[in-house]
């Protein structure tokens, strides 16, 4: 296998290497990609959409349809992980570990066992629990709000600076994931349940598709945000900018929710019991 692989790879590589001879020089301002379609974006985007970040303008407007499916891809991945991994039959784990908070004694309860009656001061812990996690917990408690605010900023400010729905959404999701890692998965799921992630995931994509469909209802083409001008009370160019913001928010919601969803399923192998 190794040798076959090597041969295939070398054949493939030399074929591509041969092709590279005929490429335009790297960074050549006169190469076709720089001359054909992109100049329109660079020169007209600001006049047509009022968004200075060209990537956002192209992403959410000119090629907004691609982006809608990009979000759908993420959503599909979330669904796929859910379908593949999630174990919904409630099964009692082999053993559970409980820690008595005041004393720090760990109780190991075998399958089917019950917790002592005065269970108020017990907390369930993961099997790979480490006692000295104060620094991690405090740091994450400290960082999480900033992370979330930054994520919102990235989503909202994507028009003017690098960033946008995806990046912001991933950061927002990462904040939750960090919480789940530093505390434990059960607590995170208590806060943001699986149902919430799943429904928010579809809601986010639905915001995107719904915005597009609204434009269609208003008589323009699908995703032609200019049609929203009347609804938003601004001129069509600004309406495009606002429309992009709406869909970016949708993307942000969907991406963050789905990232968390995938993490839940992946980190507990679908049992939503013990995470990392």
């Amino acid at each position: 296998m190794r040798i076959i692989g090597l041969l295939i790879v070398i054949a493939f590589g030399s074929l591509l290497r041969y092709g590279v001879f005929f490429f335009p020089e790297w960074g050549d301002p006169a190469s076709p990609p720089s001359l054909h379609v992109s100049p329109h974006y660079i020169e007209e985007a600001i006049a047509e959409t009022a968004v200075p970040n060209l990537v956002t303008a192209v992403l959410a407007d000119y090629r907004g349809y691609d982006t809608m499916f990009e979000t759908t891809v993420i959503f599909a991945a979330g669904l796929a992980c859910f379908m593949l991994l999630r174990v919904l039959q409630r099964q009692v784990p082999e053993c559970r570990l409980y820690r008595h908070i005041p004393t720090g004694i760990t109780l190991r309860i075998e399958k089917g066992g019950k917790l002592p009656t005065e269970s108020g001061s017990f907390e369930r812990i993961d099997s790979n629990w480490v006692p000295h996690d104060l620094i991690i917990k405090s740091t994450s408690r400290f960082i999480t709000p900033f992370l979330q605010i930054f994520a919102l900023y990235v989503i909202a400010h994507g028009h003017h600076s690098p960033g946008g729905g995806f990046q912001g959404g991933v950061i927002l999701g990462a904040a939750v994931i960090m919480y789940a890692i530093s505390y434990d998965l059960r607590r995170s799921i208590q806060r943001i349940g699986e149902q919430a992630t799943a429904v928010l995931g579809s809601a986010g994509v639905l915001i995107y598709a719904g915005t597009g469909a609204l434009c269609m209802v208003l008589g323009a083409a699908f995703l032609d945000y200019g049609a929203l001008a009347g609804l938003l009370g601004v001129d069509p160019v600004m309406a495009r900018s606002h429309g992009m913001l709406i869909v970016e928010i949708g993307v942000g919601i969907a991406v963050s929710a789905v990232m968390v969803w995938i993490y839940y399923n992946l980190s507990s192998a679908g049992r939503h019991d013990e995470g990392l």
Partner: protein
Amino acid sequence: MGVELFSDIASKYNYLGVVILMMIGLYAMIAKNNLVKKIIGMNIFQTAIILFYVSTAAKRGATIPIIRHGHNGHGHEVIHAAEYINPLPHVLMLTAIVVSVATLGVALALAVKVYHQYGTLEEDEIRGQLRNK
């Protein structure tokens, strides 16, 4: 010829990097035995393609594709295409990155499932188990 070749390499070394990364990724996918290694290889392969696209966007003497003093379209100076890097491949590659992470998620989910089924991530061991059955 040698000089020509060298100057060709010098002016296109980025594309060569792409080719090398693709070879690495493809090799891992074909020849590696471990499923997670294959998945890593797959991701390297995908990022190599992303690098290729990003390289096509590069433009000497241009800056990042965010219009300066262009707030709300009031800065009425003429914008020259040569001043900014081509944004289109960037957009495409945002999509490609997202696709690759989605694929990664599904691949890992499948790998975890395979592990739970066979107790191993090595392909030859799995194949051996299947043959014995």
